[in-house]
């Protein structure tokens, strides 16, 4: 997503992992951990000109 934002032309792209995010069901949580699944907050700005 970070790269997609930059490719689209966004500037000041920032990302922060969302603390506390987890899947509720254990089976889904285990699979998500195996694939490094995380929730992330992205911010970015469209250039003014």
């Amino acid at each position: 997503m970070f790269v997609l934002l930059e490719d689209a032309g966004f500037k000041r792209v920032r990302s922060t992992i969302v603390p506390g995010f987890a899947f509720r069901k254990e089976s889904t949580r285990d699979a998500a951990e195996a694939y490094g699944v995380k929730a992330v907050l992205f911010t970015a700005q469209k250039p003014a000109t």
Partner: protein
Amino acid sequence: MTDVARLHAEEQAPLEGVIKGEVLRMYQEVAEHPEGEFHFYHGRQAAELFGYEREWLDRAPPGAVASFAGVGNPHLRSQIRPGETVLDLGSGAGLDSIIAGWQAGPTGRVIGVDLNPTMCLKAQAHAATSGVRMVCHEGRMEDIPLPDGAVDVVISNGVINLSFRKRRVIQELFRVLKPGGRLSVTDIVSAKQLSQSIVNDPKLWAS
């Protein structure tokens, strides 16, 4: 579009349709039966986990809070100012739209876009009872039904990961933002390439 890209798109089209149906079914289920059990945390429990202010959750319509199905808190960095126009991509039952609308104030407004027309009506009703100027358009995030440069801020919460065409979605967000406009989006990402069995499983897309 190149021949390879066209071939890929044609191969993905049937699966994309199935996944769209499953996503619609899942989020409709959350809205109609928020007391149910899902793969993800939802409702007030999830919102509190992500740092939503209790005052917001106490003040918002219970139906909007109970159906909340986000993955984080885009309001932490949205910095919405009074008078601004906000796009809530995938507005669902409307909780994030309502919070954004309170920040934008009476001179601002919120535009929701959601795949599900029933959810759009629900979000508009919740916003109206919360004193928020909101209009919701049924539409796809890959073709946002807004003109160029229509909004000051984009928020979204756990929605873009549901698209097969994420690059296209991001390009659309860039298009609808005014010059200098900002984006604050929470979403799910994976560090590793998902296996084909996961990619082809509509139930996991909707979880």
